[in-house]
């Protein structure tokens, strides 16, 4: 029934608070509600599980590694690429891109959408003609 466990080395996404959107590694468990959490660009600190969403990615580390070992383990497991190629990671990247568009980009997207719809409609018309003929 459960596939994602809270364990040492589990990668989690922060979904609330100051570090929203960051990928962090669970480095140790403090008690039932809190974990000691670390990421290459932040000071190791505690975080409530309510602020974390577990991912499928897990790296191989011992309890509370020092920063160098942590970064090396993250490189070895290729966390960044695995995340960016996963469907969840890709969706987040698209969301971020959409949120950061300016008006000119949205205009370009509008033109591209119209073009794509035009091509689809032409293909559909061709198929319909073959069906009736």
């Amino acid at each position, binding site marked *: 029934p*459960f596939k*994602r*466990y*809270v*364990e*040492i080395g589990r990668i989690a996404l922060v*979904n*609330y608070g100051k570090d*929203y959107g960051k990928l962090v590694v669970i480095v*140790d*468990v*403090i*008690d039932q509600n809190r974990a*000691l959490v670390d990421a290459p660009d932040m*000071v*190791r*600190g*505690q975080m409530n*599980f*309510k602020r974390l*969403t*577990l991912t499928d990615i897990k790296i191989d580390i*011992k*309890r*509370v590694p020092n920063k160098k070992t942590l970064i090396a383990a993250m490189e070895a497991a290729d966390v960044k690429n695995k995340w960016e190629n996963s469907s969840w990671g890709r969706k987040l990247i698209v969301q971020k891109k959409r949120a950061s568009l300016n008006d000119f980009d949205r205009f370009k997207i509008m033109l591209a959408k119209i073009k794509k719809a035009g091509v689809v409609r032409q293909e559909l018309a061709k198929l319909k003609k073959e069906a009736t003929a």
Partner: protein
Amino acid sequence: MSYKYHQFQVVGRGLPTESDENPKIYRMKLWATNEVRAKSKFWYYLRKLKKVKKSNGQMLAINEIFEKNPTTIKNYGIWLRYQSRTGYHNMYKEYRDTTLNGAVEQMYTEMASRHRVRHHCIQVIKTATIPAKLCKRESTKQFHNSKIKFPLVFKKVRPPTRKLKTTYKASRPNLFV
């Protein structure tokens, strides 16, 4: 992480008199929400131990004590004396936390919830970091596992900022982790 209770080191002595030129200096480590409260607490405890009051004593130093290693998890044991509705009792409680201030804050909130004891009825006798072998309580000992693994059973669905909170939602949330 902002803590409600800060740890202070308070140093004071009685005022020098003709009979006693250099009175003994006393130092105490306390928990209080601010410096003013810490000084007041210091005199409260000192009055109970020595024949000295704030009016015939002087404060020599008050410094806040900060946690040396706030990035490591420690097991804290806290000995306390508290006043219940029927009398005074001693207690020993254990907490797992990264800082001593955090553990003391946990202690106050737990005493309030489990025993309905408010802050002013609790006196902290002693605190110590306990190595894992000497912990007494099962609830702290169950986390002494280097291969700890457990699932999160319910997913708390909430908007990422309080600004995006709405009273009504279009559909029921999916609580499966």
